């Protein structure tokens, strides 16, 4: 039973591990083997979370027939705990959504209801969904598929539906718009998402992220001077995973021969632990460590001596790193062999090298989820891409660093009448040269003459009052207008403002559909949404039908404003851009129509 999500949580103030598996949500107290809380997926009815930003990260699961349910508090530090909870939440929401669907009870979540009501346009067969083995694994795989083929809304109903729901949860305004337009039956679900695919893409990217397995070696160290090792569930988990032999020892000894605590104390004192330490075996530790009859039998035989690899590789080593590849050169030419590079010369390093190799292999295998026990990765990759051995040989013996980087200069820019680019400047400069031809000295002389009696001229200057007053007045008005704009920011009552806004967003949505159907954006065949011109024309006509009602709606809004005692002109002005835009759409539509359809 594969585990989908796990986290360390408190349940009834006891630390333990919360797991979500294929069919159960279960909680195991630390140290216990069997889960003490086990909830089948089908029984979960709803879930509640503590507010984001609350000191404790909590999750509550309510069951059918038991509203009290179970309370879990996440132990990890805050950001991590939040992430963990989000995962649980994501998984559980889908499960719960499924449960609700199958129990055919009408849904309560507002967002949810709007979506499910709206999705009637594309058939969602409940049966199909509940039969789907929808687990985290399935989700990730299906999202992998989605990644490979760009999602077009409607390909995978369940996943698609979930992503849309998430988009709505993050963007309540969009959800409101969706509720109004799609649930109101104005436009279809597919139409609504057309042009908004990127939102789903982004959501898919966010939702389908899985954390990779950390590559850090387990290396328990004493945190304090007195030599105490903090044993966390995570540490135990990692230890078991990285050293299967410890897990084996644990299973064989723990309830029967040793207690849990004894097991760990003895393990950390044993030779086995020292052999597992990531650092090179220190000579000092060897003396401190006593023999331990239980753990010593799990010790591997002293591997310092054996030089031969434990597992023969039956594949070809990459020529670039194969020390044996040049062996024949030495015989022919008589060159001395490179004595500094001998496999396994430094015996102390052998266990470490082995450990790293095993560790890396385990990591890669877990990431690729293919057992490539005998095939190293590079090879497997090439095999999977169908590369022959000759190309491989060629490739492996070429050191890319020794080659000049491919210097392709790019495509030449060939512009028609390139000279015209400079024309504007040239005109200017011609103009300038004309000016320069003027006799500079005469100009200066004239200026000097003009300035000779400047003081008397200046005294004769009379200021006309009227134009200055007018200028000042207009400036004041300007400043006043600016101030006015800044001060009266927002005094339209909330209710009316919301109406205005929804009218505006709805009109915008219709406009958007109108324009995409009349002037389709440049797409390179990625989403051939509405292909035939006839379909598009029909859509445009439909949108125009809606749009032609917009002026009435605006007029109604203005009237409401008047009734509520607000300056109706302000509402009118606020809606002006929408009004104009609608007008433009209408005229362009009718203009296009009257001269007849130009294909």
């Amino acid at each position, binding site marked *: 039973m594969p585990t989908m999500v796990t986290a360390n949580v408190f349940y009834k103030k006891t630390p333990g591990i919360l797991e979500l598996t294929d069919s159960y949500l279960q909680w195991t107290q630390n140290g216990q083997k069997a889960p003490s809380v086990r909830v089948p997926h089908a029984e979960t009815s709803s879930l509640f979370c503590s507010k984001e930003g609350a000191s404790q990260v909590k999750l509550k699961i309510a069951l059918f027939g038991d509203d009290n349910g179970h309370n879990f508090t996440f132990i990890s530090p805050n*950001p991590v705990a939040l*992430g963990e909870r989000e995962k649980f939440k994501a998984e559980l929401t889908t499960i719960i959504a499924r449960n609700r669907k199958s129990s055919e009870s009408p849904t309560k979540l507002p967002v949810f209801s709007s979506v499910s009501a709206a999705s009637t346009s594309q058939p969602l067969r409940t049966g199909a969904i509940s039969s789907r083995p929808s687990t985290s694994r399935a989700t990730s795989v299906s999202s992998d598929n989605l*990644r490979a083929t760009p999602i077009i809304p409607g390909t995978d109903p369940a996943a698609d539906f979930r992503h849309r729901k998430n988009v709505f949860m993050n963007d309540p*305004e969009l959800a409101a718009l969706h509720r109004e337009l799609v649930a109101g039956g104005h436009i279809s679900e597919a139409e609504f998402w057309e042009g908004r*695919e*990127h939102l789903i*893409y*982004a959501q*898919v*990217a966010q939702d389908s*992220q*899985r*954390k*990779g*397995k950390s*590559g*850090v*070696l387990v*290396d328990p*160290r004493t945190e304090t001077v007195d030599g105490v090792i903090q044993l966390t569930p995570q540490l135990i988990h990692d230890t078991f995973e990285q050293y299967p032999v410890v897990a084996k020892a644990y299973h064989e000894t723990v309830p029967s021969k040793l207690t849990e605590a004894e097991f760990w104390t003895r393990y950390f004192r044993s030779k086995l632990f020292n052999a597992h330490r*990531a*650092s*090179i075996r*220190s000579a000092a530790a060897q003396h401190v460590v006593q023999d331990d009859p239980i753990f010593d039998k799990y010790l591997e035989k002293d591997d310092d001596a054996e030089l031969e690899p434990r597992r023969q590789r039956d594949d070809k080593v990459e020529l670039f790193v194969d020390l044996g590849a040049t062996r024949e050169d030495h015989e022919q030419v008589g060159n001395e062999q490179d004595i500094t590079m001998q496999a396994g010369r430094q015996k102390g390093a052998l266990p*470490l090298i082995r450990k*790293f190799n095993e560790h890396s292999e385990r990591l890669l295998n877990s*990431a690729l*989820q293919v057992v490539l026990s005998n095939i190293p990765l590079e090879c497997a*990759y090439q095999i999977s891409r169908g590369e022959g051995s000759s190309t491989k040989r060629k490739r492996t013996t070429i050191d*890319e660093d020794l080659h000049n980087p491919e210097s392709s*200069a*790019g*495509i*030449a*820019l060939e512009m028609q009448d*390139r000279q015209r680019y*400079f024309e504007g400047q*040239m005109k200017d400069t011609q103009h300038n*040269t004309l000016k320069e031809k003027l006799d500079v000295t005469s100009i200066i002389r004239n200026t000097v003459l003009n300035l000779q009696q400047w003081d008397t001229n200046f005294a004769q200057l009379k200021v006309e009052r009227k134009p200055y007053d007018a200028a000042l007045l207009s400036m004041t008005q300007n400043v006043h207008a600016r101030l006015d704009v800044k001060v009266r*920011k927002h005094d339209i009552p909330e209710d009316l403002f919301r109406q205005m806004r929804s009218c505006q*967003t709805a009109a*915008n949505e219709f*406009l*958007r559909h109108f*324009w995409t159907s009349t*002037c389709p*954006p*440049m*797409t*390179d065949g*990625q989403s051939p949404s509405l292909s035939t011109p006839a379909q598009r024309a029909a859509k445009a006509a439909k949108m125009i039908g809606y749009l032609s009602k917009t002026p009435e709606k605006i007029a109604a809004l203005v009237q409401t404003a008047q009734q509520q005692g607000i300056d109706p002109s*302000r509402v009118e*002005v*606020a*809606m002006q*851009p*929408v009004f104009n*835009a609608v007008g*433009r*759409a209408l005229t362009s539509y009718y203009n296009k129509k009257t001269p007849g359809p130009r294909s």
Partner: protein
Amino acid sequence: MNVDSDSDISISDYEENEAGVSRSRTKGKKKATDKRKKDKAKRKPKDVQAYTWEANFARSWETVQEDEGGSLQGAVNDWMARGRRKRLLQPQNAIRRTIIRHMVLLIDLSSSMMDRDMRPTRFAVTLQYAREFVLEWFDQNPLGQMAVVGMRAGVGERICDMSGNPQDVLKSISDRHKLEPIGEPSLQNSIEMARNSMNHLPTHSSREILIIFGSLTTCDPGNIHDTLDECVKNRIRISIVALAAEMKICRDLCDKTGGQFGVALNEGHFKDLLFELVPPPAQRALPRSSAAVSSSTNPAADLIMMGFPTRLPDTSPPSFCVCHSELRSKGFLCPRCLAKICDVPTDCDICGLMIVSSPHLARSYHHLFPVKPYSAVASFDNVADPSTSPSCHACSKIFPTTALHNIVDGMSAIGRYRCPDCETDFCSDCDVFVHDVIHCCPGCGE
């Protein structure tokens, strides 16, 4: 005994690089010393200092050499010559570049960014350069849009959505406390994230990912080569500036997608590498197959429809904009559908028309029509009649009448630099200014 301890060191180095273990094994010493040790291990083994601040001490002034007369002119000339030689390497002819760019800036926010091999930390340096980069990038690519993704704690985290407004991008990376590095990075997750936010973009624009990567490990859920293949398929260019060392997968990501890869040696070099990515990338011919088909290797270009908006004055009464659905007084009107939008350049929210202002276009233009590099005039033999052009054509500075002797490659002995097109001479300062700032030869315009 001696041999033993030696091996100890080399192995612990190896181990840290191999496994990327963030904890080094110091057998029960405190964390602080721990961290320092790791720093040291990253550097050359010989600089074994007792304290971190000692490492900060570098005699940078000694790299500048005075000449016999005690003048620094020689050193300055040397720097300028270096710039000139670099410019000569660039393609001379106008080539196609993608001036409409979409870039995702991918910043490593893993714990390895807290390393202090760059001062004060890699993280702080990265943030600072990222801000400068964003400003410069938008300045040079006014038609571009940028998004920011962080890689933190094993997943990709969207920090800023695709935006054409530098202020939005800057704001998203201004608060360092929100971006505090934690956990391990995942190249795959974050590249997937970036890729998905670019999937819907039209292909006439460039799609680029710039990764600032400080870690030596990546913690991926799947096979990153698949991600690489997808990127190649989607024509996404990946460029990486690594802060630690070269990794095979990073190099592959860049090579196969046509991006640039570089490992920063120090802070200055880091900045250089980053800023090399500011000019728009050359559009490359598709691999051989299609080049063979069109013999001219110059595939036909398509026209893109753009619109110049009408600007509303600041003082106009507030009205609804389509982008935020808020009452705003400022704004622009789309020429096609008359929708009111807040910022240009952008794609119109309603009709999808690309809306730009003409200065934006003009600013992007110079990348397409670069000024040809000026050639250094070697001696007076090449000057037909010094009396007709006694001074720089641009700034009227009088040219020297005697030739200098200790001249490095790429510098002119008589201080003249000639435009290959208009054959007028410029002084070295104007040469730099013309090529770096005004991007238009003053002589050719006449």
